[in-house]
């Protein structure tokens, strides 16, 4: 799995660049690198559904983010106790990583998942649901309720964006404002 290591290191470098670089557009492009590498990583991990979805979502995120950042200033400011705060954050992150390194040994090793419940999905999906794509069978039949929730979140986001972009939110005293027509 050497290619996976390479991809992960590329993603980490991309993340570091995205954090360090001062230009917002370069930052967004670096995120694009991470997202597209993630898409390839999904492909290597034998998850084609995820690869397709990640690819299209990444493109969409990039378009939205680039439009948001295009030709906008970036005043780079560091607050007073910059070194101290950074040191504290880094300290906690190191503790987290050390603890994780100790605890991750309890998980089954990479490449050997336990698959207690999934075994049944794989064996029975075709005869029970009729879908040969097991992932499809899971998201739209076994766990369709999750997908309803997922669709609802997207719906919520659309309604939320429509609510946030209203020109006038609160009616002031004395002024009569008609409801907006959108």
């Amino acid at each position, binding site marked *: 799995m050497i290619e*996976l290591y390479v991809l*992960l290191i590329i993603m*980490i470098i991309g*993340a570091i660049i*995205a*954090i360090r670089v001062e230009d*917002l557009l370069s*930052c*967004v492009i670096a*995120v694009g690198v*991470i*997202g597209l590498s993630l898409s390839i*990583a999904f492909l290597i*991990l*034998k*998850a*084609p559904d*995820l690869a397709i979805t990640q690819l299209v*979502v990444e493109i969409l995120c990039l378009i939205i*983010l680039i439009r*948001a950042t295009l030709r*906008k*200033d*970036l005043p780079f*400011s560091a607050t007073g106790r910059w070194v101290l*705060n*950074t040191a504290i*954050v880094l300290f906690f*992150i190191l503790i*987290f*990583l050390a603890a*994780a390194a100790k605890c*991750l*040994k309890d*998980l089954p*090793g*990479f*490449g*050997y*998942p336990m*698959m207690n*419940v*999934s075994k049944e*999905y*794989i064996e029975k*999906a*075709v005869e029970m649901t009729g879908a*040969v*794509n*097991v*992932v499809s069978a*899971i998201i739209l039949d076994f766990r369709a309720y*999750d997908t309803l929730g*997922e669709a609802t979140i*997207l719906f*919520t*986001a659309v309604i*939320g964006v429509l609510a*946030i*972009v209203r020109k006038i939110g609160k009616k002031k005293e004395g002024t009569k404002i008609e409801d907006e027509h959108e």
Partner: protein
Amino acid sequence: MILYLLCLVLFSLGIYCTVRKRNIIKIIVGIMILEYSVNLFFALIAYKENGRAPIYSETQDILNMVDPLPHALVLTAIVIGLATTALLVAIAIKIYEKYGTFDITKIRELRG
């Protein structure tokens, strides 16, 4: 094991970016990195040695499949991430419209 740790390093970078950066777009980028790393972790624990993609084929028998359940979960998680990002960007653009900057040190009207 090393792969898991590298993935958590990515997670930590996301946390760092979210907590320490003072630019709204960079904070959103931090949240996106967090989401990517979590999704990758899901795909990593699903991988099975010499496994195949969890799709049956008409012409050949596929015996050794990777774990399909985390894939279904990641699909949901990606959408959740997209929804959150879209909402955050909308708020960010609106903040830019009101304050004229993305720098959160300059837009502190509230103090917690």
